[in-house]
Structure formats: C-alpha cells, structure tokens
C-alpha cells in the first residue's frame, strides 16, 4: 500500500478520487472509495454541468407550475380547482384510475403467480407481451383502441348495434388507461415472486393450507412492498395519462374530460392560471409518487440486504 501511494502521488488525480487517503484505512475495510476527499477541477466542472442541466430541465419546470398557478392569487387558484368542470374532471380521473388500478392489480397478481412461481414453455413470450405497452406511443395506444372499438373498427359496429359505446365514452378512457399502465404492477411483482421461490408456499400447502390461504397468509405478506410500489406507479401514471386518453375521449366537456385533458382545454383557451392550478394538482400527485418511490426503494434495498445476511 505504501509503495502504491508513492507512485500515485505525482500522478494527476483521475475523476477526483484522492488515493493517498486510503493509506491509513485497514485493508479489510476498503469499500467503495467513491466519494472524492478533495475537489478536483474536473469534478467541480462536471457537477456544475449536472446542476445546471437538471436545474433547467427538471427544477425550473416544477417551479413554473406552482408560480403560474398562484400568479393571480389564491382566490383564482381555488376558483379554478373548484369549478364544476374541474370537479367532474377530478371525479372522472379518480374513477378511471381506480378502475385501471383494480384491473391491472388483479392481472399483475395473476401474471406474477404463473410467471414467478412456475416454469413453462412460452414464459419469455408472455413476459415480452406484458412489457410491450410501455414502449408504445400513447397516441398509438389510442389509435389501436379506435381500430378495434371505433365506429369503423373491428368490433365497433357490432358493439354499437348492441348499444355499447366505447370510443368517445368512459369505457374507452378506462381501456386506454389500463393499456398504458398494464405492465406497472406485474413488472414489480414478477421478479419479487420469482426471487422468493416456492418453498414457503409448498410448506404451507403440505401443512394443509388451501390455495387462497397460501396466497393470503404466505405470498401476500412477502410481496406487500413490491405490490404497494406497483400500485403507486400505476395510480400516478393512470391519473396523468394524456395522449392515449386524448385520442379516445372525444373531448366532450363535462363528460369525457379527465384532469390532463381539462388542463389542455384551459391552456388552449388562454386561461393560463386556471390551467396551471389544475396542473398543480397533478404535479402534487406526481411528487407524492416520487417520494413514495424513493421511500419504497429504500425499504426494498434494506430487505435485500436482510435477505443476504440471512443467506450468509
């Protein structure tokens, strides 16, 4: 170690990692010497670039939302979010989000059970199909639904003759939201169920528990944090979906406008303060989901460490 120090002393300090510092650390405790003990020119410059970049692209838009929302005072803000149209939009958004969340949580649990606990041919293909909706453009999602359920779509005519309207109505909005949020719960649950294996469930089964008892008393407690994480992601995304919903909603005021569509309408009518007031509600949902995500990730991380210690 000492000779290493001698060599490194006259060399430039790469990426701001001071090497000499490690000389007095005992060999065994050499962990990640990630943090620079001294600031080099490069590290200051890089950090500066990142702060300017993230500040311009992430922090400023966030501040703009709230500044613009309150620009004309608290009274205008409250009027904008308690306007009857805004209230129906809030109601519709919550209803759609709850529906999409329920459907996708049920699906996510079913998919995670068969994909996480069993090995069978075609498993990879199903996983790929579950991931697919994430990489499809929201507008294309709307288009796909119109092609199936629209007036000139595959099933549209048949459904309309039976008095069922999907496109330009609430069912279409629910379908569009369910499509874009389809993988969110399943993707969190599948790896978790897979990692936990089947031993505990098999033991419960051999001790006489039936299938539902195994699920509720053994599996569910094990996956609760992953499930909560998926639910948070799914809810936030469901309430904020714009492109897909915009295509299938038809923008019927007071009937098929969700919160993001209401924001668009207000903005296009140059009612900026009202638009940003409603947008601030959605922003709050987004921020809450970010905080929950950070918190849940920490729990998941600690659990993983706990599992490792148990294994060792």
């Amino acid at each position: 170690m000492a000779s290493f120090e001698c060599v490194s002393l006259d060399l430039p300090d790469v990426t701001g990692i001071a090497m000499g510092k490690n000389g007095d650390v005992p060999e065994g405790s050499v962990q990640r010497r990630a943090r620079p003990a001294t600031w080099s020119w490069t590290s200051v410059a890089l950090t500066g670039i990142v702060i300017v970049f993230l500040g311009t692209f992430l922090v400023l838009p966030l501040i703009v939302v709230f500044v613009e929302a309150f620009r004309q005072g608290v009274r205008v803000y409250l009027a904008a979010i308690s306007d009857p149209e805004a209230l129906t939009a809030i109601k519709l958004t919550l209803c759609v989000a709850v529906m999409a969340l329920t459907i996708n949580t049920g699906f996510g649990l079913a998919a995670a059970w068969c994909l996480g606990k069993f090995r069978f041919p075609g498993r990879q293909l199903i996983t790929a199909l579950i991931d697919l909706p994430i990489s499809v453009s929201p507008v294309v999602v709307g288009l796909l639904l119109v092609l199936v359920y629209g007036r000139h779509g595959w099933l549209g005519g048949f459904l309309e003759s039976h008095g069922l309207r999907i496109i330009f109505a609430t069912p279409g909005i629910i379908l569009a939201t369910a499509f874009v949020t389809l993988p969110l719960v399943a993707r969190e649950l599948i790896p978790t169920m897979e990692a936990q294996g089947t031993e505990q469930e098999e033991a419960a089964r051999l001790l006489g528990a039936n299938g539902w008892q195994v699920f509720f008393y053994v599996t569910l407690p094990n996956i609760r944090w992953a499930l909560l994480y998926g639910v948070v992601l799914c809810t936030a995304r469901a309430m904020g979906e714009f492109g897909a919903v915009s295509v299938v909603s038809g923008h019927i005021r007071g009937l098929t406008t969700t919160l993001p569509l209401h924001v668009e309408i207000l903005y296009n009518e140059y009612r900026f303060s009202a638009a940003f007031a409603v947008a601030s509600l959605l922003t709050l949902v987004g921020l809450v989901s970010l905080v929950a995500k950070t918190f849940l990730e920490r729990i998941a991380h600690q659990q993983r460490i706990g599992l490792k210690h148990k294994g060792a």
Partner: protein
Amino acid sequence: MAGVMEQHGFQRFFRQRGVLPGFGLTLGITLAYLGIMVILPFAALMGFVTTGTQGWQVLHEPRVWAAIRLSIGGALIAAFIDAVLGLVTAWVLVRYQFPGRRLLDALVDLPFALPTAVSGIALTTLFAPNGWLGGWLHHLGVQVAYTQVGILVALVFIGVPFVVRAVQPAIEDLDPEWEEAATSLGAGRWATFRRVLFPALWPSVLTGFAMAFARAVGEYGSVIFIAGNLPNRTEIAPLLIVIKLEQYDYHGAAVIATVMLLSSLGVLLAVGALQNWSQPWQKAATA
C-alpha cells in the same frame, strides 16, 4: 411442431410440480387479458395496414413524410443529447458528494412522474419568448418555443431518466481501482475515460439511448404545446395520427403508427445487436 413441443413441456411440468395450485387459473387470466388488451389491438393494426387499396401511399404525402422525418430525426438527436448528459449526470450522482445530491437523484424520475400535459405547458411557459428562460434566450436571438428546437427541448426532457437510470447501476458496479490502476500506469484523465471507463459503461449508455429514443419517437403530450404544430415544419408524427383519425383515415393512421413502431423496434434491435457483437463475454456472464 411448436404445439407438440409445448405439450411435452406442459406434461413434464405438471409431473414435476403439482404442489402449488392456481397455475391454470392464473395463466388463463393472464392470457385472456393480454389477448384482449394487447394481441387483439395489434392484430387490428396489422389488419388496417394490410387492407385498403392505397398500400403505403400515405407515406408519399409530403406532410406525412416531413412529420415522420421530424419525429425520428428529433428523437435521434434528443436521445444522443440525453446519452451524453445522462452519462455525466449518472457519474456525478454516483461518484460525487455534494449538498442536494439526493434531492437531484430523486428528481431525475420527474419526467416519469409528471403527466406529459403538465410538462408540456410548463416547458412552453418556461421557453416562450416572454418566459423565464425564453425571454433571456430571445435577447440572444434564439427562439425555442414553437420551433423545432422547442420539440428537441421537450424530447430531451422526457428522455433524461432512461439514460441516467440505465447507467447508474453500471457506474456503481465499476470498481474505482480500475481507474487507479490506469492512473498508476500513467494514463491521463482523458485516456482513462476513453480506455477504461467508456468501454465498461457504453453498453448501458446504449440501452438508455435506445429507450430514450423509443419514448421520444412517440411522445405527444409534452411536445404538442411547445411545438407550434405547423404542417411540414413543426408537426410531429403522433399529431398526424390524431389528425388522420379525425378524418376517419384509419388506414393512413395505422401506416404512420407502424412506421413509428418499426423505427423504435429497429433501434432497440440494433442496440441489442451492437452490444452482443461488442461484448460477447457479457452475454455469457448474464446467461
């Protein structure tokens, strides 16, 4: 043939593990749901692309072609900017300690968490000629909002988390001793980056690039407010799909959507091939 193999697989599978219940039920739910939600709509898309007399004629319309070029070209440039700045961001967030680091780290996911319509109006207000940044840029003679630059700004914004989140784990896995070894062997900063760090990190940068591109090609909500939406100049492909649908031109809309889907698929496959070709040992390690 596949069916026969599947049957054998299933028989073997059922012989091996009969203890856990619910396989048939959950697989049935999964397949039924995916069938209705994913397979049926994509089958309809293929149906509408292949039927009709015009074939791919719609792509010859100058307005359509301009929009597709703008969407794909803009997405490529934005994904490239994201790759460069995302790599730097990931590096700084993993390796350096400074006040506000954790907050910035959490904020990286903001473009995921913020509804696209909200980011759209926020970015537009920020970069409009009378906005906080737009006014300042206006004095320098740069117009951002309602131009192609504005589209780029929105696309860069929504692509940031893809690259940062793809690269961060790779940097965490990187042992600083590699850099120390390079330095002790006499490499300068740039040589260390080029010869040691970049070869280890670029597969993850490419993954982030491809994901940012796939997202940017189809992005709608955050772009339409800042774009200005002038035909042939600042009209993106997703907006043209909406316009075609309003004219009940299902076939034309389906063709544009197919081109967009194929372009993201193409970039994802190209990146996968590039990674396999350049780092065959990684494949062996993960397999």
